[in-house]
């Protein structure tokens, strides 16, 4: 399943790259893209685990950028 989410408070391009890298390492993620310019997260992951992957993605995002919110 592939879905796109708007990101709020994405301020640092380097963090965006790190977040993308870390999310890509999660089990069940087929592909992921964090677009700094359009402030979007495009996540392609297994349907059954999508919700839990999205939660993990939020945890990763907060780790690098505390104010970053993935808008669901």
């Amino acid at each position, binding site marked *: 399943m592939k879905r796109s989410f708007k990101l709020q408070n994405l*301020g*640092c*391009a*380097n*963090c965006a*790259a790190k977040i993308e890298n870390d999310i890509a390492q999660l089990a069940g993620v087929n592909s992921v*893209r964090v*677009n*700094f*310019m*359009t*402030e*979007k997260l495009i996540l392609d992951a297994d349907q059954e685990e999508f919700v839990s992957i999205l939660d993990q993605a939020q945890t990763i995002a*907060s*780790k*690098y950028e*505390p104010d970053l919110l993935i808008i669901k």
Partner: protein
Amino acid sequence: MNKIKNLNKSEKILLIRIFFSAFAFVLLLPLYYGKSVDRSNNWTIFNPDGENYLFLIIYLIIYFIIGYDIIRTAIRNIFKGTIFDENFLMTIATIGAFLIGEYPEGIAVMLFYQVGEFFQRQAVNKSRKSIAELMEIAPEYANIMLNGELTQVDPYEISVDDEIIVLPGERIPLDGTVLTGSSAIDTSALTGESLPRDVFPDDQVISGCINLSGKLTLKVEKEYDDSTVAKILELVENASDQKAESEVFATTFARYYTPIVVLAALVIAILPPLIYKQAFSIWLKQSLVFLVVSCPCALVVSIPLTFFGGIGGASKAGILVKGSNYLEYLAKTKKIIFDKTGTLTKGNFAVSQICPLSSSGISGETLLEIAAYSEYYSNHPIAAGIIAAYGKSIDPDLIENAEEISGHGILAKIDGNTVLSGNAKLMQKFKIEFPGNNEFGTIVYVALNNKYLGYLAIEDQVKTDAGRAIKDLHQIGISEISMFTGDQDLTANKISGQLGLDKYQAGLLPAEKVEHLEKALTEKTDANELIAYVGDGINDAPVLARADIGIAMGGMGSDAAIEAADVVIMNDQPSKIAEAILIGRKTFRIVKQNIIFALGVKFVIIILAILGIANMWLAVFGDVGVTIIAVFNAMRALNPRLSIRHT
């Protein structure tokens, strides 16, 4: 003032903090240095004299006002397992300054950093906004007639063959054909063309254009997802996925740069004091400089931004670039091969000469009239050209019979007369005597009641801007411009001469075009000199895909060609190719400038730190200052205002 109003609440608070602490900082400077704090005998926070405690407290208050959020984030991030982020580095650097007794410097660095961050955020926001504006071609609704009332619905809900109504001032939501009404439409968002286009019933219109003057009823031809506007949005948004070499370089570089610099900071803080038995405080300062310049932000932010800007700027000009890497390829293009029909020429046939047989005594006008009547029922493009040249209305009642003889022409009975119009083979078939002819182009011979009357020469017209396109390309330093065509040598030669091409290959079958291109590709001596192919038809798809960079004519090109191409010219004008190359070069130039500038400054600061003469101010400039300048430079890519100087 307006700019301040546009800020959000947290930005306004930050601005107030910046102004307050800057004011307090300046006010305190003369007091601090005026008191002539004796710092010669290793005065630090650990052994201050009584009077300086007051200063320490005041400075600490200002420090927390300007830097509390940075310190808070740094502490929070340490607990989350992220060290060495910017917040951490700034906190360490400024606390370090306090520890060695440089209170003003500690505050100044934090202040400078906050100002820098503020500007950087504004710059990023501004460029995000310009990009969002480019994306604003998406239609929000479509009007349909529901129970006799005009109702707005989501464009997604409309299916093919539905009728939609577009009122003046509205954006055309889906691709379609005009059923009723006429209007002028503004296609500038898609084609970069500033002149409005007039549309009438049966004309095709594309989504994303703005209807300017009249009410139009359209028959929808494509669902929203297949419509031009949806495709363009998808293209532009995904374009940044195809990363250019320099973008890959920046991310790879960032991955190694930060840990190396942080490690170097550690080494410089520990080794020299141990070796030279110097005070730790001196080298601690230099190592803090290392930490501050260790962020690769300037590169990581500015390079993708530049490419995004370049792609956005190109799409404003009606040029779709499918990825950052293609901008880089465009910049490196040295040779261009054009397809002829539909690319350099309009692909519609027009009558170029009317030659009645002088002994027959008829006028050119009559000859054209007879030909037009005979071709009336034919749907061959040549027939359309003849009828268009005649221009007057045709009375179909006069045409009693018209028969198309495949590969020859037309045999028609008009108002009691037998008319033949077609090629030489048709004349020979009906044993009509006609003079031989080596006229250029396609010839349509006309005979009335088995008597030869004269001929019409039909030509595919060269696009009005084709000549300028070739001239521009030569002007900007494209070394070789050639043309591939399936047409006969005579036609190719004339067009080639007319446009000033360097060479041409005539009489090519589609497969041969690929062969010739491959030959050109293998003959290349320099791998950095790329060959572009420009085409429009289905035959071109394999050639477009094979070329270093494939450029398709979007308006009339086939879907297959657009799919296979890397760059699409929306308004079919070949003159846009020079513009696309210039945009590519400008983008690439900005990227190179930013890489050299950012790395250069950081490198110099690191060297100065090793020599022991860099200070924190310089370091903060090397971090945020460089990023701001790089971001501002990157934003130039959004404005493709280019001019080609004609000599």
